[in-house]
């Protein structure tokens, strides 16, 4: 459903020029669970941001579904992004001033969904993630694992086609991390395409394809023979 051709991303800061991505060509089909791996600084997050339409490439082509978004500006990317892509970040990125319920509701607000429908959708996803009793609490009152579950709930509440996860278990202990990965696997099995950035081989084993990046280039791609169940 998405394809990049010779993607390039260069960052300029004052006098320093950094080429974060150089000649990236990848393809992700609907329903896949792809893991992008590589050491720190190899450009994984940058690639994820571009794939997630949070940023634009300096050069190269990017097709998202039927749209060529290679040179789209922020406004155009926002329109395509809305409702189609859900994000899960390493540091959760919940809004501290909003309750759990309000955090999850946020994407639906921007999709202009009616209040009654919003309520239904949020409550459903709260139940699915087993956090219904936490609806009126604030993020600061939750543990790390619970916060990430809220973040995932927020990511799926609008039933997006694609979920992008950037080091989803990076700030969690192993038990919570396990839980998060199972959740992601379930979602994928239910039909959601997932692209995940990680440097944990354990986490990567949940995916069905692993792309390795090094210094901004794709080095290997392999199908995961052993699916983790």
């Amino acid at each position: 459903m998405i394809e990049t051709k010779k993607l390039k991303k260069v960052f300029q800061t004052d006098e320093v020029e950094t080429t974060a991505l150089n000649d990236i060509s990848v393809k992700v089909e609907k329903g896949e669970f792809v893991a992008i791996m590589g050491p720190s600084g190899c450009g994984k997050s940058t690639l994820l941001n571009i794939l997630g339409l949070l940023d634009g490439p300096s050069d190269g082509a990017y097709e998202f579904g039927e749209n060529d978004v290679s040179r789209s500006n922020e406004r155009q990317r926002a329109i395509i992004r809305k409702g189609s892509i859900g994000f899960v970040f390493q540091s959760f990125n919940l809004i501290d001033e909003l309750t759990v319920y309000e955090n999850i509701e946020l994407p639906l607000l921007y999709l202009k969904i009616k209040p009654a429908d919003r309520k239904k959708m949020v409550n459903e996803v709260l139940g699915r993630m087993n956090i219904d009793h936490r609806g009126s609490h604030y993020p600061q009152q939750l543990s790390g694992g619970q916060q990430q579950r809220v973040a995932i709930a927020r990511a799926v509440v609008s039933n997006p086609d694609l979920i992008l996860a950037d080091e989803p278990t990076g700030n969690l202990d192993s038990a919570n991390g396990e839980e998060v990965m199972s959740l992601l696997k379930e979602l994928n099995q239910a039909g959601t395409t997932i692209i995940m950035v990680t440097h944990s081989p354990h986490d990567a084993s949940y995916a069905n394809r692993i792309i390795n990046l090094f210094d901004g280039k794709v080095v290997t791609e392999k199908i995961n023979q052993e699916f983790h169940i």
Partner: protein
Amino acid sequence: MLKNIIKVALRNLFKDKFYSFLNIMGLSIGIAASFLIVLYVVDELSYEQSFKDKERIYRVATAANFGDGQLTNIAASSAPIAEAFKNQIPEVESITRFQPISLNITQGDKFYKEDKVMFADSTFFGVFSYDVLEGDPGNILAEPNSLVLTRSMAIKYFGEDALAEGKVLGEILKTDRGAFAVTGILDDFSGNSHIDFDMLVSMSTNPDALNPIWISMNYYTYLKLIPDVEPATLTDKFRDMIIQYVVPQVVQYMSFPETELTPEKVDQNFKFYLQPFTDIYLTSNLYAEFSTNSNIQYVYIFSVIAIFIIVIACINFMNLATARSAKRAKEVGIRKTLGSVSSKITLQFMMESFIFVIIAMLIALGLTEAFRLPFNTLSGKNLSFNIFQNPWILYMVTGFTLVIGLLAGSYPAFYLTKFNPVEVLKGSLSSGKKNSIFRSILVVLQFIISIGLIISTLLVFKQMSYIQTKSLGFEKENVIVLKNASRMGEMAQSFKQLLESQSEVAKASFTTHVPSHSYWSTAYKTQDDEATDHILFYGFADFEYDEIMDFKMKQGRYFSRDFPSDSNAVIINEVAAFTLGLSGNDCQDAIGKKLETLNFTGERMAVEVIGVVEDYHFKSLHIPIEGLSIRLGSFGDNLAVRVHPGNHRETLVKFEQLWKENIPNLPFEYSFLDEDYAQMFIKESRMSSIFTIFSILAILIACMGLFGLAAYTAEQRTKEIGIRKAMGASSKNVVSLLTREFTKLVIISFVIATPLAWYLMKQWFAAFAYRTSMGVWPFVLAGVIALLIAWFTVSYQSIKAAIANPVDSLRNE
């Protein structure tokens, strides 16, 4: 340690150049504006302060019933009071009179007109401690035809050298009132006083000074009481003197039956009272004041504005400092772990505030001096900002620095030092909801003040335009008034005809008064009611006066050459007709009625009402129109010339030429009627300009603060904005998110400010006899302006934040 603190403070200042600049500029402008207001207020409060024994000096004022049932308070008093008081009231240490006059001086072939001259008793310097440079103060005003000059006048007429060599005393100046010898020289008065003169002539030169009439008030009488006497204790003595002197004359001249004048009746209808000398300039607004006084109300208003401005500037400072506190939190945490104690850290931040304030103060001093001259022009004053001449300025500067530094620096300092080092270093310090509530309160306060000022400014503007464009009932445009007409002698009529033959001239008329002048007043009786005296203003004008003034006759006619009996005719206005009880049948009742009055020699005479003119504003719009009567006479000192619209400057040049050719012995002096009239509102005009400017300044400072705060808030919420954008927020969503909160604050401010401003402005409006309604649009407009200002200042930051790339905000730490 101190060096360390200063180093850190300065580095912080330069690190956030934008905020620092905003903060310092806002504070400087605020301080400078306040300084100018303080200079103004101090000047206003300084009147009479340079006189010795000022607390014992009083003006004798008269309160009299002029036949309209009310007591009218008059600043002037009658000629014989001074002598009588001195002889019969031992509590009076010294007493003096003076009377403003003008002199025409001839020196060689030069003519001068001096308008700031006064007749003054020989006791003048016993009451007022002017600095006498040459001559004995007790003597210089004793002999008739004595002239006392100020230093500047001495130099003007005799030159600096003569003055330096002491050759001015004894010199003679030829005037239209005789030849005067210079007997004394005063230093130029360096203080402020409502009494203003350039020359004094001895009262003994004035024959009228000996007149025994107690019921004609043509002099100013000031006295000095012996120490420790309360003016109130003299009330009985005053009453006794009124019974002794005033009552017999009222009986004699105004044909009042003596039996009617019981002590109680007298008390209700005629009083003397003492006005403290130092109160006159700011609070006295009696009939016949020496000159237009000021109003203590304005002193209060401006003081309040100065306080407002400082408060707004301090609020900005506090807001921005606290807002940026989160950035300093890490530094605080580190200092604490390194062994610093809370109080030391408080001290550090206090010192930083002071450094900020000191820098702002230095800039403010520069700004104050830079804007001093324009402000002088605006306020009509001559303020100086010289520390050497006025050491109190130094105290003010130090005081301001301390107060502002403490006030503005205290909250941020205490707030910052409360941070728990552990939480701070872990990074889990939230910016705090409590903190933002306090900040919101400060913003609301600023906007209440700003909105209040906008409303007031709009209302003042509304009233001033109303006053300036209100129909006066006569045409004030295109009238040139030439003075000294009464001394033209035989040339008068021919010169008038000469002018009228000029193409620029429509008509010319001799008149004793034009609107905005001080009219004479006299008493009239109707034939039905011999007992009651009705006081009306009066003046004399010739046959052409109605065409000059272009007023409307309500009934009857204006004077006409066809009726020789018009020399005993009178024209009255509608108010006069009402006062005389002749306003029935739409004032038709007045026509043909005879009124009794006194002529110049005090003899009774009868005049017939031939016309009633529609009321017109012959005096200031400050007061309701009063009763006016016009008599026929062409001896007036004013030659009012109505010219066709055009280039009046050129017309004046022509007039001056004609004047010089035909009446070379009289000075050519003129004024424009519309300018004369506008002069009556000069004080309000000035006030309104000053008020507008300072309001705009206050609002500007509030905006600067809001701008900085919005910038900071947007920056603070960058991460949140990034998340929302990732969740699908459009730029519009983000902008409305950020402006929504400020909009709420502005609306709250508006709701609070409106009733307050309405109430306060209602008081100001009440002081005008002719006023427009406050209406609704100034309030609505103020609200709209405030919202627009808030949106404008906040939106720049919001839009910047909204179109930023979410990635930049979400970058993992």
